[in-house]
């Protein structure tokens, strides 16, 4: 068990998501930055499906009730174990009664805590990813107990030496493909979208990132159609909305671009006023 002493700003259990329920309107969910979360699991020798704790901007304070091993990846939120600073992307042995805390956000936005064998919180519809209508929880809260396994033996993990690298979160280019309605854009609109540095507006969360500035737009809505994380919608008012992991399953705005998986991961590490630029790539 891990006991939550302080929940942080938005800390949720996530795995690779919930598949097979889009047709009853249940979003996929899952880790926002699958690259960083995957790195944490690989370093620990976990399965890639193992659930991790996704922590946003301000980390939680956690009490370990059992000994285990942990790795923290993604954003650097100045993690410390019993008040001693520890590094991201390294395996740390944690003893019973140790306390993991966080400090100032230095890079990125979302950090990942992986524990040996993964978090064992409730699995609903094949996934542990928090999504309120399905799991009943939006985020962890004070005094919540998070189930983890006590590792049978501590393994010296040599994968640690592998050339796995975390991504530079200050990069601005997001690789995008043409979306189904891309061809409906005028030449000047598509030029504008490709040339403009966009700012992340204050409206950004696990469902979607809204970008600024708005661009001129005369495109009508479309007949409601499927969407996926990474779909970039253009609203009638000219706003670009990038759908993220908790997005709804269908939408009625033209889908002008589609982010690659690596672009979704990078955008997940952006926050208000960060700059992004789109770069069109072929599939």
């Amino acid at each position, binding site marked *: 068990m891990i006991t939550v002493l302080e929940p942080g700003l938005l800390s949720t259990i996530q795995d690779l998501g919930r*598949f097979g329920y889009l*047709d*009853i*309107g249940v979003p996929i969910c899952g880790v926002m930055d699958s690259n960083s979360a995957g790195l944490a699991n690989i370093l620990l020798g976990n399965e890639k499906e193992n659930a991790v704790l996704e922590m946003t901007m301000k980390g939680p304070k956690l009490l370990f009730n059992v000994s285990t091993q942990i790795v923290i990846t993604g954003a650097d939120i100045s993690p410390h174990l019993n008040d001693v600073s520890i590094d991201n992307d390294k395996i740390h042995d944690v003893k019973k009664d140790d306390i993991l805390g966080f400090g100032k956000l230095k890079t990125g936005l979302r950090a990942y805590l992986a524990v040996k064998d993964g978090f064992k919180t409730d699995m609903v*519809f094949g996934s542990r990813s928090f999504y309120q209508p399905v799991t009943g929880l939006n985020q962890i809260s004070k005094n919540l107990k998070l189930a983890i396994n006590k590792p049978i033996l501590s393994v010296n993990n040599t994968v640690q030496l592998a050339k796995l690298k975390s991504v530079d979160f200050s990069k601005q280019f997001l690789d995008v493909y043409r979306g189904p309605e891309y061809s409906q854009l005028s030449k000047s609109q598509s030029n504008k979208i490709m040339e403009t540095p966009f700012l992340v507006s204050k409206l950004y969360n696990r469902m979607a990132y809204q970008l600024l500035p708005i661009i001129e737009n005369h495109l009508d809505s479309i*007949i*409601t159609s*499927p969407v996926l994380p990474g779909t970039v919608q253009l609203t009638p008012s000219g706003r670009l909305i990038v759908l993220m992991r908790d997005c709804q399953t269908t939408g009625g705005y033209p889908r002008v671009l589609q982010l*690659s998986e690596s672009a979704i991961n990078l955008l997940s590490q952006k926050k208000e006023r960060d700059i992004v630029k789109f770069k069109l790539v072929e*599939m």
Partner: protein
Amino acid sequence: MKYYLKYKRYNEYSILIEWPAVIDEDILTNIINFKNNIENSYIESLVEVNSAYNSILVIYDCPIEDVNGKINELKRIYTYLSDANLSSTYLWEIPVCYNEEFAIDLDHLSERLKLSKSEIITRHSQQIYTIYFLGFLPGFLYLGGLDKLLQCDRKSTPELNIKKGAVGIGGNQTGVYPQNSPGGWHIIGNSPIQFFDAKRYNPCFAKAGDKIKFVPIEKQKYNEIINAIALKTYSLKRKLLK
């Protein structure tokens, strides 16, 4: 009936299939049939299939390497589409309380549509609606068949907190909010029914292709149904269509 379909790669691991851009029951039947046939075929690394009014998204669990191969595989299934997998469809009777307490926008809507409140309720509850697909929120049904006289633009600014069960009208659509949510539709009633329950084996009773009818109930009946649902003694009325 066969349609000319467009196949497009959507992202690394999915393919979009599009029908003509119209809302039509024959297209719906064709989409459901194709979706069932895809789901019942052996397709390597297929994860799931999501459908909407005029398209299907086929999702795989790893990046697609040979996109033409995958598209041809889907085209073959469409060429030999079988009706054998068409599942039974039902007409569901959804109780709705149109009392003032719930119908917070009915007065306003009555002025706007120039119809009496009782006429709005009658027209809303006499139609049989077709479920085209589920989306937006878990258990939210996209319904076709709203009476033309009830069509009305959405509110210009969405309300922040629409109550679970609220029955609304917006544009040419009507529907029930399966949980508390923001929304821009005009609210004319509330249904006590649970449209989505993660604790049930089948979390949502309805599926694309089914039909529904709204049945007006009084507040007392509404409360009885709420209690019966809590005691797990309530079952929704349904009729087998085919």
